[in-house]
């Protein structure tokens, strides 16, 4: 999957104070990662907000204020205000008398099979992410940054390793000189990107979620106050530090300013990673991908644990959380998947929910048993076995039963997926309940085929 430039990008235009797109994807090289020199000539030096001593602290809290004014929301899926996170970690470290220094974790686990935006940034624009992580470290008073990158993406691991090497060999590290960066591969599994799972892994445990509280900002990696931020969030932060909050807000909606990366897959001519303005129409994203390859049946928004929207409403969809809320959807981690009319949604859901069930950390009973039961119900419909007419009501009650009953949000996501599936694919589900599998059930999967899950054991890397 390739990264695509936004439709209005001129290739040779330097990133600047101009408010338009592309922002994050400006200057993205066709192959390899953008080098430090090119990065700095494109975006400019980091602003000197982080001197030493008093100046450092003053500048740092200035950055948190700026991020707050910018209204930056986390791009890992939950959309939590980044400034609030920064403040919580900065506060937690201050409250400990002579206590542990905070630590910054870059969340590049990207366990979402239909998402490629974070690995695209890491692979192609690693210095932008490193800038953001370093600035965040300075802002919360951390001297250590752990870059968690999915082990299944060697190009991203290589690019980050090279970028860190480049900075070590350069005198241009500038304001981030006092910050130590460490690259840490993260196991490839769906729940590995949950904050608590990542913290658990980086503390030497398995990459499995833990019972919270304590939340990472209170007790994170090795018990230290920990800031966990998504890769894309930090890249935005690096640009806000340079151009300011007002610049950031010149795109997007007041309650969700700026731009976002989305991964567009499915029945489109040019699938890939695109940068969009929050609130822009889904139709223009599809146009930017040179249109559809088949008549669409529905669009999955957010991620594999996202929400389906019927294709008949495709023209009404705009890509911001406020615009998506009437559909019960949110932008999540920016996954947009177009399912064609040729596919059998029931068979797709049987495969998808079986995979999601396999990705349970198998720690919480309701998730372990409930997700398996959900997958079995879809399999009854697409495979024709068992009491098919009981499957639909069974799915409805299981979706309600698993919600909110795990240590992490994995069962909640599956519940959301099932609920919207029952609404959007009601006809197909009823048809399968009455007549059993359809001809299209045997078609190959349209949803990006997740890799065969490995056994639910995870050892520290």
């Amino acid at each position: 999957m390739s990264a695509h430039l936004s439709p209005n990008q001129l290739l040779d235009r330097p990133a600047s104070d101009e408010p338009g797109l592309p922002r994050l994807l400006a200057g993205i090289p066709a192959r390899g990662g953008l080098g430090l020199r090119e990065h700095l000539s494109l975006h400019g030096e980091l602003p000197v907000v982080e001197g030493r001593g008093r100046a450092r602290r003053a500048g740092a809290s200035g950055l948190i204020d700026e991020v707050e004014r910018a209204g930056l929301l986390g791009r890992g899926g939950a959309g939590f205000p980044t400034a609030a996170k920064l403040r919580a970690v900065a506060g937690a470290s201050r409250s400990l008398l002579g206590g542990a220094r905070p630590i910054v974790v870059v969340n590049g686990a990207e366990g979402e099979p239909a998402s490629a935006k974070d690995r695209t940034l890491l692979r192609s624009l690693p210095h932008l992410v490193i800038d953001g992580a370093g600035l965040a470290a300075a802002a919360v008073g951390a001297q250590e940054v752990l870059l968690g990158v999915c082990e299944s993406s060697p190009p991203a691991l290589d690019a980050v390793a090279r970028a860190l090497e480049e900075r070590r060999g350069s005198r241009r590290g500038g304001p981030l000189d006092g910050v130590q960066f460490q690259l840490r591969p993260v196991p490839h599994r769906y729940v590995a990107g949950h904050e608590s799972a990542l913290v658990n892994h980086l503390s030497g445990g398995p990459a499995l979620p833990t019972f919270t509280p304590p939340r990472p900002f209170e007790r994170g990696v090795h018990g230290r106050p920990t800031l966990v931020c998504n890769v894309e969030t930090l890249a935005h932060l690096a640009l806000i530090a340079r151009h300011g909050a007002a610049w950031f807000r010149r795109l997007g909606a007041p309650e969700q300013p700026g731009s976002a990366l989305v991964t567009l897959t499915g029945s489109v001519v040019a699938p890939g990673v695109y940068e969009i303005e929050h609130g822009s129409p889904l139709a223009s994203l599809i146009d930017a991908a040179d249109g559809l390859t088949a008549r669409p049946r529905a669009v999955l928004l957010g991620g594999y644990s996202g929400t389906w929207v019927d294709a008949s409403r495709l023209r009404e969809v705009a890509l911001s959380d406020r615009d998506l809320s009437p559909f019960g959807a949110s932008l999540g981690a920016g996954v947009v998947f177009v399912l064609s009319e040729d596919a059998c949604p029931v068979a797709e859901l049987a495969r998808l929910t079986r995979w999601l069930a396999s990705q349970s950390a198998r720690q919480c009973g309701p998730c372990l048993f409930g997700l398996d039961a959900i997958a079995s119900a879809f399999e009854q419909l697409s495979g024709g076995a068992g009491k098919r007419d009981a499957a639909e009501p069974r799915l409805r009650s299981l979706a309600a039963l698993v919600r909110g009953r795990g240590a992490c949000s994995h069962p909640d996501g599956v519940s959301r997926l099932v609920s919207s599936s029952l609404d959007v694919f009601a006809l197909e589900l009823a048809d399968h309940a009455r007549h059993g599998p359809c001809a299209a059930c045997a078609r190959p999967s349209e949803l990006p085929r997740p890799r065969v899950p490995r056994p639910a054991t995870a050892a520290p890397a």
Partner: protein
Amino acid sequence: MTSHRLRVNPIACEAHGMCHELLPERISLDEWGYPILDGAPLDPALLAHARRAAAACPTLALLVERRSN
């Protein structure tokens, strides 16, 4: 004013079902034997029973949490 709520640590819970035995007023079990809580504040009259249920849980997965509002 302080209220008490029940919470379960779903990782620790092994579906022994003691909590339901001791506090059926507030805890039911799903088809696999795991507790279902409603999240509402505890009636003070049930507080002692709730504490007993929490103490009786073999994996200490049931928590009686105090919240000040």
